[in-house]
């Protein structure tokens, strides 16, 4: 039993409790050695270091943790999780923070969330990712109309981007999965 389960008797679930419930990770396991931050490939693009995000959660500074851009910048490369001496799966921890942030509507990097939403929308509709649709939707959502304009035509000519989605047969099954996942 982890130390955190005591917290269940508290009136309010702290962010630490929520994370532990969602992932089984006890945030207090982190002893702040900083090896995660040291090896993080996107560290230089972060204002708040990854270990500091954990520290914020440990200290109960829940808003600061959820609002940090860091959780959105995590590339999910798992370098931290692999090298962590405490077997702390920080990448999963970051995912959980994102998931909670979305539920609470605290979204610091709306652009990144929009991308994920656009991507998932394609899967929900077609069962597969559809790049043209994805990029179209994402660009419309972010007004970032000109990025990759140089590559796009070539992609198209090389047959790498199709104008119409390839749809799977049993789209019903996918729809159901999404409905149930969104209900949770």
């Amino acid at each position, binding site marked *: 039993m982890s130390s955190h389960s005591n917290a269940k008797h508290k009136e309010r679930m702290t962010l630490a409790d929520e994370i532990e419930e969602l992932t089984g990770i006890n945030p207090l396991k982190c002893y702040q050695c*900083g*090896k995660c*931050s040291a*090896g*993080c490939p996107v*560290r230089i693009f972060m204002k708040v270091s990854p270990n*500091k995000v954990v520290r914020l959660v440990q200290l109960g500074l829940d808003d600061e943790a959820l609002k940090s851009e860091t959780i959105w910048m995590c590339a999910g490369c798992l*370098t931290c999780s692999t*090298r962590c001496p*405490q077997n702390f799966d920080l990448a999963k921890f970051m995912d959980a923070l994102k998931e909670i942030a979305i539920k609470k509507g605290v979204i610091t990097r709306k652009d990144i969330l929009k991308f994920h939403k656009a991507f998932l929308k394609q899967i929900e509709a077609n069962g597969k990712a559809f790049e043209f649709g994805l990029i179209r939707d994402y660009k419309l959502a972010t007004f970032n109309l000109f990025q990759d304009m140089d590559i796009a035509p070539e992609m198209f000519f090389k047959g790498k981007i199709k104008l119409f989605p390839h749809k799977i047969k049993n789209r019903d099954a996918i729809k159901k999965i999404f409905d149930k996942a969104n209900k949770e």
Partner: protein
Amino acid sequence: MMRIGVFVCHCGENIGKTVDCPTVAKEAIKLPNVVYSIDYKYMCSDPGQNMIKQAIAEHKLNAVVVASCSPHMHEKTFRKACAQAGLNPYMCEIANVREHCSWVHDNVEEATKKAVDLIRMTVERIKFNFPLSEIKVPITKKALVIGGGISGIQAALDIAGAGFKVILVEKEPSIGGHMSQLSETFPTLDCSQCILTPRMVEAYQHPNIKLYTYSEVDNVDGFIGNFKVTIRKKARSVKENLCTGCGLCVQKCPIKKAPSEFDEGLANRPAIYVPFPQAVPNIPVIDRTVCTFFKTGKCQMCKKVCGRDAIDFEQKDELITEDVGAIIVATGYKLYKIDKKSKDAAVKGYGEYGYGKYKDVIDGLQFERIASASGPTAGEILRPSDKKQPKKVVFIQCVGSRDPSKGFEYCSKICCMYTAKHAMLYKHKVHDGEAYVFYMDIRAGGKGYDEFVRRAIEEDHVKYIRGRVSRVYEKKGKYIVKGEDTISGVPVEIEADMVVLATAIVAQPEAAKLAQTLGIPYDKYGFYAEVHPKLRPVESSSGGIFLAGACQSPRDIPESVAMASAAASKALVLFGNEMLEREPIVAKVNENTCVGCFYCKKVCAYNAIELKEIKDKKGNLVKVVASVNTGLCQGCGTCNATCPSKSIELIGFNDEQIFYQIKAL
């Protein structure tokens, strides 16, 4: 006919407040065979004890039940009082009416009833007690010390100094251990060899110490005071009695490139070698795995040059038995080799630090050799790859320690200090150099230790960065060290010329095997377990076997030496007696009914069950039964519970005593 006396103690108010002691005494006298009962304010006081003694005499008591505090408190006191009155001490039992009754209950009626019950159970039990006497065992006043590092040397010198014989066994060709490899020692920075060598010589020359180097302990039989030890003297291929240590054979040996163990692979040695110039004894040994003669049958250069004809290619391992009364285990530690991807999945290695791949990423002992005046660079700080002086050195702490993911959970304890020392030594030798230390916490809790670390930081300008390094890789002859300073929250990247890893202190690879030979417990890492972490830190749970130094957990030199002296004094306490007295709580076999299934032997953790042949008058074998070696038996009674026919019973806690206790419920 059993005549039992019951003595109810008030313990001032401690018992008397919740247990109605006079009523209890009145109830007790009603119990069958109880012929006397009394309550008194303080039974353990002199008048209280005198009451017991008098009652024994006046009422001809042959058993005494004292209702008082826990037997862990005063069982000995009351038994001694009984003995003084001429009653066998084992005819005295305690009913614990304080810790288990008056102190844990509030209701007087309930507590009183329970006290009476506890006395009744004890009275029923004591009816099946019988007089016992302490077991006496003679003691061989000679000690075995396993391991000739600083701990073993210290323990051997202490025991020898007290006038007792010591056998000192060392598996390497020379005594000295890891301490002989060190450059300087923290926190005083005195030269390790300068302080160690005289001790080595003293041990070698001490008339009471018999030294076996290049030898190992093969087997241990017996028990406290009476061990029989088999020592394997490995074939040195050199006759010790003839060799003068002139060193000519070492000079002439054509094989020059065997990696030197002493120099941690940073230098080479010949096939016939003395590990280091100050080695004790100064007698070479042939490494048969690299010697040309042993590989091809040709060469014999050493034999040709030896004027004393001391080379003996035919020499075999020799087994020697020694009788000793005490054993001190001082087998020390190893450094965790992080380049080895162990088969044990728990140890995953540190590919991210490139140790084993990059020549200039070294461990702490290698740095000691580089910094040592007797080392391969004669004390000049030169990096292994190109023998250039590194201008930037990064020291990384906690490599393998405090790392349940890749290494071990525990703190290796000495790395904080030796890393500070390394950084300081480096700065003292390379004045324009930069030293960086990546650490998690600085653990410098020893005399003068924190001051030493502060000196490294404040006076020698060693840059301490709080954070674990994530990656080390080579780029154009430099080693890029990627870290994060977690205090400022700033990423750090250092282009270093050399990286020193403070790798974990681990148990000797053969530690578990030796523990099994000795019958002592060890933890999951292979460190030997002390019997009590606070009050008996140098004793193993096997009587007569003591622990010293880093074989028990990571230890620095002062601690190892202190432990060694403590272990030696434990052995001396033993040797101070002619005979060993032990509580007679041991198992006993009923040879008539024992059928020799030896389940008792299977469950015995002490190898106390031996096979005994039962023969008829004509000498024909009737059967083989179990027999208890009372020297080894510790009295746990697991055999008793396991025996299907109850042909082995634990004296003092036999089935009858327990049954009648249950029955008195």
